[in-house]
């Protein structure tokens, strides 16, 4: 079976220690997590994990089963790239002098739809949200001039299909 990139979405209670429990499931099966983002979701007290892995479909199905076994997990799903809308964010810290000395940098920023977040006498910071390849592209272009710091977030994603978590919770409470 073919290895593919899957985005796993986990809706869970917002409880201390759950991140550890979820991460352990991947560790136990020797599966590397490519990116992981945890945040609050559209439902109060419910957290949303977005986990990106490269595995076979059979593997991802089994992982979903194990994640859903966790008492605090409400529901877990997996999606291919085609089934969801996703992006990540990145920050680039660059020497301020380059902004004035290398005019090409201004073009790069403009063409990449990146935003300048802050400018100080020593450095300026660019923020770029988008697909991984777009951020990689910007990185490669800026790297030529020198990047003081670079950081990239995990993937965030919403699915094209409905997930119906609120309905599920209502049903569970009745």
């Amino acid at each position, binding site marked *: 079976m073919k290895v593919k990139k899957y985005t796993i979405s986990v809706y*869970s209670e917002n409880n201390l220690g759950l991140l550890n429990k979820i991460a352990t499931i991947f560790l136990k099966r020797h599966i590397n997590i490519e990116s992981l983002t945890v945040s609050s979701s559209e439902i109060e007290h419910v957290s949303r994990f977005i986990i990106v892995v490269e595995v076979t479909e059979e593997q991802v199905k089994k992982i979903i089963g194990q994640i859903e076994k966790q*008492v605090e997990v*409400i529901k877990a799903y997996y999606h291919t790239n085609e089934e969801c809308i996703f992006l990540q964010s990145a920050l680039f810290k660059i020497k301020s002098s380059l902004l004035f000395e290398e005019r090409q940098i201004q073009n790069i920023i403009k063409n990449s739809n990146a935003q300048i977040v802050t400018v100080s006498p020593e450095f300026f910071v660019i923020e770029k949200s988008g697909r991984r390849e777009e951020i990689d592209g910007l990185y490669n272009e800026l790297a030529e001039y020198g990047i003081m710091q670079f950081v990239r977030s995990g993937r965030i994603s919403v699915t094209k299909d409905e997930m119906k978590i609120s309905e599920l919770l209502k049903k569970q409470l009745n």
Partner: protein
Amino acid sequence: MDTITKSSEKVTNKKNVKITGAEAVVKSLLEEGVSLIYGYPGGAIMPVYDEFFKYEKQLHHVLTRHEQGAVHAAQGYARVSDKVGVAIATSGPGATNLVTGIADAQIDSTPLVCITGQVGSHLLGSDAFQETDIISISTPVTKWNYQITKAEEIPEVMAKAFYIAKSGRPGPVLIDITKDAQFGELEFEYKKCEKVRSYKPVPEMEPGKIEEAAVLINKAERPFIVWGQGLTLGKAEKEFQDFIEKAGIPSASTLLGLSALPSDHELHVGMVGMHGNYAPNKLTNECDVLIAVGMRFDDRVTGNLATYAKQAKIVHFEIDPAEVDKNVKTDVAVLGNVKETLSAILPLIEKKQHKEWMQKFSDLYDIEYNQVIDGQINVSGDGLTMAETMIALNKETKGDAVIVSDVGQHQMVASRYSKFNHGRSKVTSGGLGTMGFALPAAIGAKMGAPEREVVAIIGDGGFQMNIQELGTILQTRVPVKIIVLNNQFLGMVRQWQELFFDGRYASTEMVNPDFVKISEGYGIKARRVTERKELAEAISEMMASKESYFLEVVVEMEENVFPMIPTGSSVSDIRLK
């Protein structure tokens, strides 16, 4: 004034009257109907122990000699009594000593609530004296765990712990309570947990799947059932018997499924797995429909997955959705509690007999009997065998005893030869294979079913792994019977060394102490048997004893357990020698 317990010395609690967190732990246990708890005290759990002293008439605490003994005793208690076993320990080493038993309970689906003390919350993460992060340590081996840092959390979390441990597919839960939470105060109000928002213990039964399964089963010419502990946990023994009798299907047990169907039932065709019976293993690869009921296709059952029942349609009755397609791809998965799903499928099942197919099992049993069993029970050599000991024990117990076995060759022999008339009669460490399990588990089993005879079958290796629990027997006078089958070897490893490592017995030969003297030192009546002529009489004497009894049977040093499926081989490649 609210009455909290129904005991003679009433525990009462008035609203607005505060009690300590430690007292709330004890009251919560009483609310859950707990009357027996196994444990070992220490600094971080002392406030709770102080409450045990106060409540000793309602809640009996059994002081084991090691925390591992406590958790295995709680497992034995839970397995025979259908109640939640409770074990308690202090922080740090006390907590980590519980971990093996917790892992054992997790893989064997045993309902446990383990309570550990923890350093004060202001010291958490500071590497304080006897601090370990037991929540992180126990995460992969618990069904649920939680650290309590405030006294007010205790009633709700305790109620949740019992509900989660017992519901759906049972398992162990660990509650870690900081010392300040034990000293803290709260207004105690207890409400049993009946629901946890995110947790669905039993998946919904799908009528369509029941119908699909019935069609496959009715069409089958060579159907075969493998059942597991799910039958016992789901209390579905009767429904299962009705189902197999109507459908006329030969049925084999996994190691943990043993005793869910009486051993002498005409459709009981033995045990599957690495040291199971010849016929059910061999015919797994000839059946046309394989029906798995409350079992999880453990690798010791399936052997090589690439060749396991490839010719068969697979129907899986299972409560845990994560087990479906985990190891073996199923054609129809019937999710739900087997008690309900088997009841639902029964009216759809056609009454049948599969005489020719059953005859195949019978023919293969004859082969196994002639080549293996006969030689083990009708022994011509001088040395005693493990099998003849089990046959002699069967004659004495008549299949009515609870047999608790440890891990190794004796475990397989005890499982192959024990006779069972009643459910919840076989207790062993199946999934984790924990040596040292049986002695404390037998103590717990006897306390969980005091009206039944409980016999522990243990090897000389496993006996010494928790031998200190003889002290628990001394103190509690629990009348458990212990048979140590002594071959002066770590027998199963030695067998593998003989078969697969050219006979290089690396560190498997044991120089043992005088077990009889040790047992007598603990005040337990003890006897050693080395001659065949003494065996039956010694077992008879042991079973007649009203007190605990230790019997050492000195058996052949290099006896092997057959049949055997070598690791990685197909179930149908099972070897008879």
